[in-house]
């Protein structure tokens, strides 16, 4: 359920609506081959790549066809977060067309046109909950620019002032309201209008919004309820074969012995391909490929990582966490304040390796030709993937064509090119196109895992129980150093400390540092919620510990530390009010709270748990208050709160990837357990009306739910959980 107070519609705020656009912003217009209008908006700060003069007409963001259909090429990829709908809304709002007049297309790889401008990305990447944050202005600008040109064309035809004309649903009306011209009849003359300078374009004030802030439904839903949506795994090409895959169970291992003859004797099997770290059986259909793979009875040479196990990895991290670390934040004098404190509290927190386990298993279809390569894959990083494939094959980047696809759940897994590179290595040996599909076991056992973290945290309290010193040491592997080395500066991984370095609270004498420790035999990567998904658990659990030590109510304690932070305070108050904070609960039940600022959004979440005689935890209710700035689509916001909560809750309760003899011990949904319908709590979303810049929301709830639940367990049973998952302790 969602609640948004419609009476308190957002008011414009200066930072959002009068921001000066760069003078160098580019707005390009051209006629399409079919006689339509093409429009590209590009801001030079988006990426380092230059926009080529002739690109926009071909790859423009926005294209209006002679039949009046508006085509929007979406830079981000749809993987459930609702971005195709939200982006269409932003465009349609300013273009003044109905939402169903917009058709969306997956964007080809092109950083110059489609890079997300936000500083931590600056490439065509769908991640960091940044799509709305990055494209909110450019898309509206594109819509407004096209509208202005279409109106100017009509005004010219009527010989009236453009400013006196109006537009409704793609039809321009003259000042008297008697004459009208549809966009489709204005395309040719609009294309010859001068594009307005971006800083001359006035975007709509919020009180005129027709779509933004409303809850139109997902534009691609009809296809998704009828099995028509094409995900990467559904790609079918003429002459295509399918391949089943076995990757070395130990990282760095190789196939030693493969019974190719037995595999080839299987009906439907065409070929057995061996590459460095894997074996693929290529067949007419997956049934045959899998059967052939079993028949191949592969023996592996495990290589150097055969003795890796979880106990050893955690021991190593624990030792590493003793420091020293690289300072992320240092204000005041922690040591002095800590030793002078009335009470000193210290704790360690641990979070496990996690797999993504999206419902659509990893897959990629490739057609490797002599000097080129064509790829069909759902990817969050089309340009990075394109470059990686080009490097692997030793061909120019533009010889690699990538067709992005709908993704059946990304959660960060598709932020890596590994699956595509593997498919290309296989495809190199196959004549014609081949679709490589990972089994669920391969998908879970050869994931790129959320790092294991071993954090140390301590605080000093004064006589009144207020924190006067705060020290948080984050210890774990660095995803940034591996995946985006250019952003790994002076030994500091900004993602690893996100949510730790800047907690929402007023904390003086604060020292936050980071120790990088790489686990051998394990590759780690981004997982929904990224840095905050680990740090918010540590910080919010520890704040709860401090409240308990001070003998204060957890909400009251937080309120006292949020006086300087009105938006955080407001979500906390709203969540507490809606949850009925303070109302007595029966024995065995408890409420826990958490507060978070991440991805540009403020959240507060209250969880209610019940413990049975065996201390099994059941989460019964979740109340989430959200201030994500101006809410673009409340229905989607609620969907992301539901989704993020369940994703985070699943992990908090029982998510863990463990290693033994170099191998991942979990393999399918019987050992890496997803949450199911009967365990799902009631989840209530309350949206704070706001006119601030929109924040991201795809990952926020995932990050905040764990500490709210463990704090609730503490409230119910005085049991403090400092190591996730909950069911392991």
């Amino acid at each position, binding site marked *: 359920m969602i609640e948004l107070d419609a009476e308190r519609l957002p008011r414009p705020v200066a930072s959002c609506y009068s921001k000066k656009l760069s003078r160098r912003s580019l707005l390009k217009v051209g006629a399409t081959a079919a006689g339509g209008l093409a429009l590209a908006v590009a801001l030079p700060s988006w990426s380092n790549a230059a926009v080529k003069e002739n690109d926009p007409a071909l790859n423009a963001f926005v294209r209006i066809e002679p039949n009046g259909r508006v085509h929007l090429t979406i830079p981000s990829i*749809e993987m*459930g*977060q*609702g971005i195709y709908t939200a982006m269409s809304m932003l465009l349609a709002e300013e273009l003044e067309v109905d939402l169903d007049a917009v058709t969306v297309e997956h964007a080809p790889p092109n950083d110059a046109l489609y890079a997300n401008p936000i500083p931590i990305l600056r490439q065509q990447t769908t991640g960091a909950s940044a799509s709305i944050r990055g494209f909110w202005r450019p898309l509206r600008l594109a819509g407004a620019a096209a509208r202005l040109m279409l109106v100017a064309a009509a005004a010219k035809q009527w010989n009236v002032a453009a400013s006196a004309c109006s537009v409704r649903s793609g039809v321009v009306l003259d000042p008297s309201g008697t004459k009208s011209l549809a966009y489709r009849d204005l395309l040719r003359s609009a294309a010859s209008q001068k594009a307005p300078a971006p800083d001359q374009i006035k975007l709509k004030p919020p009180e005129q919004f027709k779509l933004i802030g409303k809850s139109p*439904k*997902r534009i*691609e*839903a*009809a*296809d*998704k*309820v*009828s*099995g*028509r*949506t*094409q*995900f990467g*795994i*559904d790609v079918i090409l003429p002459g295509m074969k*399918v391949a089943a895959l076995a990757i070395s169970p130990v990282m760095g291992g190789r196939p030693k012995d493969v019974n190719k003859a037995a595999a080839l004797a*299987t*009906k*439907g099997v065409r070929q057995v391909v061996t590459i460095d770290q894997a074996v693929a059986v290529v067949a*007419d*259909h*997956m*049934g*045959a490929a*899998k*059967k052939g793979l079993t028949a191949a009875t592969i023996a592996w040479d495990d290589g150097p990582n055969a003795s890796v196990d979880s106990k050893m990895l955690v021991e190593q991290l624990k030792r590493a966490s003793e420091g020293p670390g690289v300072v992320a934040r240092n204000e005041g004098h922690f040591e002095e304040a800590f030793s002078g404190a009335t009470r000193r509290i210290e704790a360690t927190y641990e979070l496990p390796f996690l797999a993504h386990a*999206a*419902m*659509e*298993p990893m897959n990629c279809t490739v057609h490797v030709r002599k000097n080129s390569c064509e790829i069909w894959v759902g990817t969050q990083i089309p340009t990075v993937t394109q470059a990686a494939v080009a490097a692997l094959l030793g061909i120019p980047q533009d010889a690699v064509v990538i067709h992005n696809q709908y993704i*059946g*759940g*990304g*959660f960060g897994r598709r932020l890596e090119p590994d699956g595509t590179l593997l498919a290309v290595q296989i495809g190199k040996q196959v004549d014609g196109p081949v679709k490589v599909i990972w*089994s*669920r076991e391969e998908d879970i056992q050869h994931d790129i895992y959320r790092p294991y973290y071993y954090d140390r945290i301590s605080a000093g309290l004064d006589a009144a129980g207020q924190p006067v010193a705060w020290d948080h040491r984050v210890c774990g592997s660095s995803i940034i150093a591996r995946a985006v080395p250019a952003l790994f500066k002076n030994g500091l991984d900004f993602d690893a400390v996100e949510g730790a370095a800047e907690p929402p609270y007023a904390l003086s004498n604060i020292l936050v540092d980071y120790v990088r420790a790489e686990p051998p035999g394990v590759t780690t990567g981004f997982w929904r919620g990224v840095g905050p998904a680990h740090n918010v658990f540590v910080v919010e659990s520890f704040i709860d510990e401090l409240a308990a030590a001070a003998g204060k109510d957890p909400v009251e304690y937080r309120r006292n530390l949020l006086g300087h932070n009105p938006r955080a305070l407001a979500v906390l108050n709203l969540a507490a009010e809606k949850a009925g904070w303070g109302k007595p609960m029966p024995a065995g039940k408890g409420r826990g709270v958490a507060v978070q600022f991440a991805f540009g959004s403020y959240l507060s979440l209250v969880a209610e748990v019940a413990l049975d005689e065996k201390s099994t935890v059941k989460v019964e209710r979740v109340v989430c208050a959200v201030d994500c700035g101006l809410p673009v689509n409340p*229905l989607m916001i609620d*969907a992301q709160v*539901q*989704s*993020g*909560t*369940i*994703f985070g809750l699943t992990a908090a309760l029982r998510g863990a990837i463990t290693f033994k003899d170099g191998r991942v011990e979990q393999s*399918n*949904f*019987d050992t890496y357990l*997803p*949450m*199911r*319908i*009967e365990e*799902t709590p*009631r*989840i209530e979303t309350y949206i704070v009306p706001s006119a601030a810049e929109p924040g991201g929301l795809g990952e926020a709830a995932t990050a905040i739910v764990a500490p709210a639940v463990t704090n609730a367990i503490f409230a119910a049973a005085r049991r403090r959980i400092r190591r996730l998952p909950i069911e392991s302790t």
Partner: protein
Amino acid sequence: MTYALKINGTRQTVDVDGDTPLLWVLRDVLKMTGTKFGCGVALCGACTVHIDGVATRSCITTVDSVGDSSVTTIEAVGRTDLGRRVQEAWLDLDVVQCGYCQSGQIMSAAALLASTPHPTDAEINDAMSGNVCRCGTYNRIRDAIKRAAEGKQP
């Protein structure tokens, strides 16, 4: 070995080993990709189809076990009034996110409503527990099943 299958009202002949899972016959041989692969071992429900109206995991159903039974997939579930009602309820409540699990969810829900027109929460749990959604659409799924149950019978 060839098998003549009755799928969505049409006879389709395929030439595969008898132990080939129906899932791959549908997806790779007949090129009907609406039915999804999620786990391969009956743990996720993504591959759910109806066999003689019963929700069945096609990933563990071998082609030689189908015989003369009628197979219905997501591509055709909307041809019945009940199936269409389920799809419409899904749209009304904007259930889907990534959508990958939803073919299976809808097939399970349609089979449930066919046998139990007004399911209780417990009956919904029983029927839908085998269908995993990693996007966490469960609350809207429950509401959509109830909405479809309220819909008028023809």
